[in-house]
């Protein structure tokens, strides 16, 4: 908590009847790249707006370097925002848009010019200075919005889906570019995305949110390998989620078989969610594995084959399998699972569970 640059404490926000944020606690360290990840409408933008000062929380406090900034107006906060809807000034050209913050700081015009040139170079828009905002494509506007924020070299940069309008290649380039900028300038990034791959590749810390509740906070590796509940598991990468029963420590039963696993500390015979990553499923000869499945479909996905299968016993469950090994459609194969491929999770609480079902 000591070296946090921004800290949210028990933030709640309600619009009308919907509780958009529910007792949100979050601490962001200096120079950290923190990503808010979650489905549409889960409150990511609202969180950023509260940090930026454009919305006031109903309850809770926002701290900047351990100073409560609840009542500080946005223009006094030492941070800049890349808005989800770009919010570029239509009455100014690209240059003036980017220079806006610098002009307010009353920088000499020569310096402004060189700063603007530099950031335009960073976002790949050399020579766009004189262009009208309305003449730019969505992706170009988005990059101007990024440039307008980073040119001020703020302590904290809030980015609300800043790469949403870019094509895959440009998006990858910009991801690297943003990451470089963040390291070079030592800026703390609070980044919003609903693209889990983007979150995994760029972040130091990921905050998975759903319905205004934090589901899990952790490093990309933790979040991917040790999802805390079925929602996180399902949202981060694809997963197979089946109902299971924990017999005792290290022993779980699902689809009618007992498996060895690495989890403990559950009640005896507690109902749990069992999460398995499709790439961890190992295909073997029929009857050579723990159980058999029938392959329903096979799709080539570039690097691997994606197969959908179902178990042939009473508890009919769907299995998603990623494998470089191809099986024949309609054939029966055996499946093996190692203990560390099986992730046991507590059943979701009713609140989170409801929304999860809706999805």
């Amino acid at each position, binding site marked *: 908590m000591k070296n946090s640059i921004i800290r949210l404490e028990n933030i709640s926000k309600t619009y009308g009847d919907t509780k958009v944020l529910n007792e949100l606690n979050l601490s962001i360290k200096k120079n950290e790249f923190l990503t808010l990840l979650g489905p549409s409408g889960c409150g990511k933008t609202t969180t950023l707006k509260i940090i930026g000062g454009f919305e006031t929380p109903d309850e809770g406090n926002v701290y900047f370097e351990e100073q409560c900034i609840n009542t500080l107006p946005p223009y006094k906060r030492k941070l800049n925002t890349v*808005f989800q809807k770009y919010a570029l000034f239509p009455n100014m050209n690209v240059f003036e848009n980017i220079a806006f913050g610098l002009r307010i700081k009353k920088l000499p015009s020569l310096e402004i010019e060189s700063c603007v040139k530099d950031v335009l170079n960073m976002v790949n828009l050399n020579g766009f200075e004189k262009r009208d905002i309305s003449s730019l494509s969505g992706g170009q506007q988005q990059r101007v919005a990024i440039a307008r924020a980073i040119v001020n070299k703020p302590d904290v940069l809030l980015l609300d889906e800043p790469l949403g309008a870019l094509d895959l290649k440009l998006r990858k380039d910009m991801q690297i570019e943003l990451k470089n900028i963040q390291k070079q300038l030592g800026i703390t990034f609070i980044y919003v995305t609903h693209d889990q791959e983007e979150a995994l590749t760029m972040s130091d810390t990921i905050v998975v949110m759903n319905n205004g509740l934090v589901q899990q906070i952790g490093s990309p590796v933790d979040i991917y390998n040790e999802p805390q509940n079925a929602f996180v598991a399902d949202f981060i990468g694809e997963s197979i989620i089946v109902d299971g029963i924990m017999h005792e420590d290290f022993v779980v039963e699902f689809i009618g078989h007992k498996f060895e696993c690495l989890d403990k500390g559950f009640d005896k015979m507690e109902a749990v969610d069992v999460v398995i990553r499709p790439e961890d499923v190992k295909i073997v000869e029929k009857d050579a594995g723990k159980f058999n499945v029938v392959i329903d479909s096979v799709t080539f996905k570039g690097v691997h084959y994606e197969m959908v299968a179902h178990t042939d016993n009473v508890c009919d469950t769907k299995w998603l399998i990623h494998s470089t090994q191809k099986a024949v459609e309609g054939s029966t194969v055996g499946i093996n699972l190692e203990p560390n491929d099986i992730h046991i999770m507590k059943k979701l609480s009713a609140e989170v569970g409801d929304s999860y079902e809706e999805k």
Partner: protein
Amino acid sequence: MKKNKSFCAYPYYVWMITFIVIPLLLVLWYALFKSENDSIVFTTEYIKRFFEPIYIQVFLRSIVLAVISTAICLVIGYPLAYILAGKTFKHKNMLMFLVIVPMWMNFLLRTYAWLTILEKNGILNQILRFLNLPTQNILYTNYAVILGMVYNYLPFMVLPLYTVLSKMDINLINAAEDLGANKLTVFKKVVFPLSLPGVVSGITMTFMPAVTTFVISKLLGGGQTTLIGDLIENQFKVANDWNFGSALSLILMVIILLSMRVMTKYEQENEGGGLF
């Protein structure tokens, strides 16, 4: 499809020809031709007469009064529209209602009402007397005319301004504040420039009726202040000089069209949708 559409437009053509094109041609005709010894000859006599000092004076007075009233309308109307467009303002509907309600009343009636307020023994002076303040003789002065113009045309200023201001993207204001601009800078650099189309239509919609009015100057100016509108009306109704009346109308029209052209050009440079 196309044929169908142009067919639907016929009634409008008929309307336009009867009520716009024919009267305009008549004006042109009377302004530029006169009958002499049973023959009709082209003449610039009537147009030239406009440039006599006495008429130029009337014209300038009209312009000055209209400019002053338009400026006052802008100064009063902008803050009003700004308050009305504010999302958090509580009595918004009430205030909006007050702005619009006079427009439901007859124009003449509204102006007559001011007579009873401004009269020597009118409501205003009664109040002043009651407060032991010196009475004012505003009626039949330029002030009364300006007051009448501001009163009558203020809604035409407020409504277009209200429209642009209430459509303004809150994200733009947030973005400006995010970049360090305080409320005043946000207004100067973002809100006001973006509301210019509304300012331009507001000015056009107040200035045009103000410069051509004759009712207001007649009732509240009491004939003391002749405006170009009165002059034109007089040519037709009193002096029975249709030719000169038409010439005056023509000149006024040309001047208005020219100034509108300038306005529109200015507006295009600043982008955005306005009245024209």
